[in-house]
């Protein structure tokens, strides 16, 4: 321990005597370590931001499906309303897809045609589905979708409307009919897709109508949107609320966690920023090494003197390694501060919320110190090899 105190004092004396050089090297390390920390910090902040954005879009959705089997009436008619009784549930709605051979969608003609329009899909939805998926356009009368009567109405996605020859310039085209499963159906609205659901090629019909076509609701899915962060508790209570008599007939799925996606983004961004930081650090290492080699040469007689006074080769090497470590440590300290400020500025400039991991400044400190020590390995060994007898011959 005492050796290190002594070595430290020794270095402090020499480093303050050559203050300008010392400061220059510290600044060099600070820039290298700072850039590294900043790129790291910005990466973390950026990828966290991306992950947050993705999470905001998806992690507030919960799906409830039927556990299996072909039972009918798995969902009670008021399933949507039941889900809404839970706190933190913002909206809920059901959807059931009808295969095209069953639905046989077509333009309405009085003639009897066997063909039907391809490239469209048919789904039964409840009004709540519009809310859950943020669907817009022509939804003013969407309550008809909840009708349990055989109400022959349909909403069309934009693409589906085109396929069926229905104009899409008005949200409420009137007087148009299509044919579904041989029935005449009135078109009551054109629906726009949202980020949560693409319904461009979908023909949306009342939920009960679709269930009737399929005979069973075993393929229906109830989707619930919750306040952010409420997914866990809501999903626990959901089955109980929807089917208190037989919760086991339902399966709840929270939208998958995005960790894998997140780490993918992380590593891509990190590699880029890191390589810039690493290059700067390599440059800094060379700079310090060069400066220390010069210092060792100019201090040859002092090193020889130390050896002559009894210092071992290890003592000499330790002297320069310590000097490198101190330079690196101080530079790393300044670099950590620089990097943290840089990360904050980057985050603010991009309007990101700041995610500053606690270890970030320590990375800067550690990297600075390592760079300082690494840079001084060669100078230290060459200093240790100086021959005292020849070194003290010179003034």
């Amino acid at each position, binding site marked *: 321990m*005492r050796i290190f105190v002594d070595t430290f004092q020794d270095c402090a*004396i020499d480093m303050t005597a050559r203050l300008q050089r010392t400061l220059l090297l510290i600044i060099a390390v600070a820039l290298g370590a700072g850039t590294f920390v900043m790129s790291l910090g910005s990466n973390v902040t950026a990828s966290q931001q991306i992950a947050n954005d993705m999470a905001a879009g998806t992690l507030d959705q919960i799906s409830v499906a039927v556990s299996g089997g072909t039972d009918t009436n798995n969902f009670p008619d008021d399933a949507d309303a039941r889900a809404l009784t839970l706190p933190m549930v913002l909206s809920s709605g059901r959807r059931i897809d009808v295969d095209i051979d069953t639905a046989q969608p077509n333009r309405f003609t009085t003639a009897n045609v066997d063909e039907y329009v391809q490239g469209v899909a048919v789904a039964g939805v409840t009004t709540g589905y519009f809310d859950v998926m943020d669907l817009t356009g022509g939804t003013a009368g969407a309550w008809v979708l909840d009708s349990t009567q055989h109400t022959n109405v349909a909403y069309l996605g934009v693409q589906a409307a085109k396929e069926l020859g229905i104009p899409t310039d008005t949200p409420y085209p009137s007087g148009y009919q299509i044919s579904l499963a041989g029935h005449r159906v009135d078109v009551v609205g054109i629906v726009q897709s949202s980020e949560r659901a693409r319904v461009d090629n979908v023909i949306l019909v009342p939920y009960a109508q679709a269930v009737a076509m399929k005979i069973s609701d075993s393929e229906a899915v109830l989707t619930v949107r919750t306040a952010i962060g409420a997914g866990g508790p809501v999903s626990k209570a959901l089955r109980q609320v929807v089917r208190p008599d037989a919760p086991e007939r339902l399966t709840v799925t929270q939208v998958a966690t995005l960790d894998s996606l997140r780490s993918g983004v992380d590593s891509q961004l990190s590699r880029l920023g890191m390589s810039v930081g690493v290059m700067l650090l390599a440059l800094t290492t060379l700079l310090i090494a060069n400066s220390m080699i010069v210092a060792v040469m100019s201090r040859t007689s002092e090193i020889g003197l130390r050896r002559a006074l*009894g*210092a071992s080769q290890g003592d000499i090497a330790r002297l320069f390694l310590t000097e490198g470590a101190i330079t690196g440590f101080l530079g790393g300290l300044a670099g950590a501060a620089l990097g943290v400020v840089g990360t904050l500025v980057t985050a603010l400039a991009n309007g990101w919320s700041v995610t500053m991991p606690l270890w970030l400044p320590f990375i800067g400190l550690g990297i600075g110190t390592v760079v300082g020590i690494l840079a001084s390995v060669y100078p230290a060994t060459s200093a240790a090899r100086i021959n*005292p007898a020849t070194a*003290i011959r010179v003034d």
Partner: protein
Amino acid sequence: MTAVINAHQLSRSFPGTPPIHALRDATLSVEPGEKVAIYGPSGAGKSTLLNLLGLLDGPTTGSYTVLGEETATMPARTKDRLRSQAIGFVFQQFQILGHRTTRENIDLKLSIARIPHAKRAALVDDALEKVGLTHRATSQARNLSGGEKQRLAIARAIVNRPQLLLADEPTGNLDARNTDLVLSLLDDFSAAGIAVVVITHSDRTAAWSHRNVFIYDGVLSATPPRS
């Protein structure tokens, strides 16, 4: 009493074309408390001999025992330890660190010898007082006068209470007053039982010693060579 220095047929050659035989078959022994002056012209091999005696350099051939320890097979760490603890060396060029204070220059020797901090201040004070530099303790060493630097070099050599003091022309650049001052200092050390080996050009120093050894062209002799 065993000899502090026991050198037997030490030779040291430096590679070159032709090789330089700086020292040839030097045999020398010095007892504790003895004052020996090595006297010879420039280039005769005086510093080469002193470097061997001070374990700064190794002989090409010959054997050397210092303080009872044979040096031929001695590990480097042991030599380092002897240099830091048992041998005081006053270098031909002062080898003083100009950007450090007088006190720090002396303390360096103790720091290298791993003497605990608590004991150092007293040892440094003692050495400063012996050489009369107490009033210059906190001066930057580069600002000291030639005589003061020489005394600082001596203070550093003896601060750790060595058993052997080797001085390469400690009076070389000094006037008569300063020379006497340094010689009387060396007398004190010798009286304390320290073996003192001094290289010199000056008759004054040669007259002061117990014994003079002459060196000419790398060869030692007890009598001045006939010219």
